[in-house]
């Protein structure tokens, strides 16, 4: 049998098309249906958080609660939320001294005196659930995505573990879970908020320094907070559309 190039191209082309169609169909079959929460409509919500720096006492409740609630590994390099301590001597906001021993998990050992002429405060950090997330933009397979309710989530059954999203997050909010080799980050306690509860960190905060808010709910107190406080987001120059609104955010915080 003599095959010329035309036949060869035709035949190979057919095989290629058929194989990829079958593969795509199979992928669709194994993907299954996503988990749903009853009475929760994603389009009815737009989640954000109000964080009042002046109220944070650095107790670490939020960090501990988060680690337990979300089964975050206990090593000191894996956090969905953490707390930073800022020490700004002489009001020099260019050169703050920052620490976050074990992410604030165990509280903060006494380090700075009460009257040393410096500004001291705590800054709780977590995923900013950006409206224009640089992390979801770069995911090669869409395993991390922006939900219609403004929550940035990860489908760990689809994540390749390429770590591009970790690089793309300007805030350092993502880590690779060493047990699953997939990326993990704050989900805003999605399993809780879709059932009408607040997040573990907000639940356990003794001073109300962090409060979850639904920006689509006109009766949510977050609107009052945003009206009455001068707020700022972290790294506004990154234009990520962060929805973590900090009140009392000092210029030294980055």
């Amino acid at each position, binding site marked *: 049998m003599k095959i010329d190039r035309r036949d*060869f191209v035709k035949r190979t082309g057919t095989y290629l098309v058929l194989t990829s169609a079958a593969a795509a169909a199979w992928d669709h079959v194994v993907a299954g249906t996503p988990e749903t929460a009853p009475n929760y409509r994603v389009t009815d919500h737009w989640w954000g958080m109000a964080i009042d720096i002046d109220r944070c006492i650095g107790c670490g409740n939020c960090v501990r609660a988060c680690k337990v609630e979300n089964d975050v590994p206990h090593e000191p390099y894996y956090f969905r939320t953490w707390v930073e301590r800022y020490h700004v001597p002489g009001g020099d906001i260019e050169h703050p001294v920052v620490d976050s021993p*074990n992410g604030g998990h165990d509280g903060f050992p006494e380090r700075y005196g009460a009257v040393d002429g410096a500004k001291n405060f705590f800054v709780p950090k977590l995923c900013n659930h950006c409206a224009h997330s*640089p992390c979801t933009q770069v995911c*090669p*397979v869409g395993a991390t995505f922006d939900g219609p309710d403004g929550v940035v989530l990860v489908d760990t059954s*689809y994540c390749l*573990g390429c770590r591009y999203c970790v*690089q*793309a997050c300007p805030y350092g909010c993502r880590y690779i879970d060493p047990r699953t080799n997939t990326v993990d980050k704050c989900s805003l306690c999605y399993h809780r908020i879709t059932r009408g509860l607040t997040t573990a960190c907000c639940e356990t905060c003794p001073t109300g320094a962090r409060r979850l808010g639904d920006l689509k709910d006109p009766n949510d107190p977050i609107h009052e907070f945003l009206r009455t406080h001068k707020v700022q987001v972290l790294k506004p120059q990154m234009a990520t559309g962060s929805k973590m609104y900090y009140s009392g955010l000092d210029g030294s915080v980055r």
Partner: protein
Amino acid sequence: MDATLPHVLGFMYPNEVELQWSILIVLYPFITGLVAGAFILASLEKVFNVEAVRPTYRLALLTALAFLLVAPLPLQLHLGHPERSFAMYLTPHLDSAMAMFGFVYLWYLMAVLILEIWLDYRRDIVLLARSSSGWLRVIYRVMSLGIDNISPRSLEIDERVARFLTVIGIPSAFLLHGYVGFIFGSVKANPWWSTPLMPIVFLFSAIVSGIALVMLLYMLFSRMRRVAIDMRCLDTIGRYLLYAFIIDFALESLDLIHRMYEADESFKSLDFMVRTKLFTSQIVLQIILGTLVPIALLALVQLVRLGERARQRLYATAGVLTLIGIFAMRWNVVIGGQLFSKSFLGYTTYKLAFVHREGLLPAILLMLLPFAILWVLVRLLPPWGGGHAPEGPATPLQAEGGAAGPAQA
């Protein structure tokens, strides 16, 4: 952080302490760069009719193929779930720069490189299939895809298609490596990476490294085959290497000067990093030994009249230093971009393990693998014929020995 993390200097966001991209991700742009560069050298002959580099045409194509086959391996080895990587083809996220890798790669591998090599070698493959026996014959038959029409008319079509392919191939090679640069250059969170110059710097450093590699391989193979090096060819390659290097260095200097002059919020932090943690790999290896010295050596050949042996030695030294320098450049981009905190308040350390999935040993093996593949390819498809000989089976032809003209001086 505190004393619990001794390899951290200053403050890092807790999740930043561990590096995400290892030495394997350093290999990825290094290897794809060699591919793109080798291909550009091959196109010099085909598209721009630089006749002098003909002895390296086929060698450059085979080198590009050998390295391209290895290019995705470090990525696969690095992935947390390599078994899922095929999802990038089935359900690519079109906003992602990385999602396009598979397509750019396949396009370049299948539509450009393999097709071009196949067209160029088709006559040889058919003739080799006829003249060989046993399993070798089967291999050649498979490689010919069952097509054994080598009439002059058919070969003429091959030649025309191959030329067209090379013309598509140049933008494709640019795309392949410019794209790799874009993967880094488009990360706005990272000021060390985020610059529109990144793709073009990557591209020119790729051309530099690919030319240097083929030049070294040509000298090496000539020595192994005990044939004289075509000095006209070598001098021409050396000249193009110098030109590409000057452009590359100018672009990198532009990036550096721009950073220093603008001195944005990240500058102090990055400047400190370059002076400390990256001093050896950036200042010493990349800039001085890997760029300034080879440029000086290559320029010396242009300026001073030297004998053949001396020129060969200079080219060999410059080539090796070039490869070291470009590897250091990839290292400084990939690893350097992760040593500083995005808070600009601290630095971490990269700990390179040896026997580890992402350690030094797999990196060394992955760097040796393309040479093994190339060795097999050269045995199967001897590149010494030049591909343009009018008659006869693919035996080593006169191309390399005969044209030893005087130097361009």
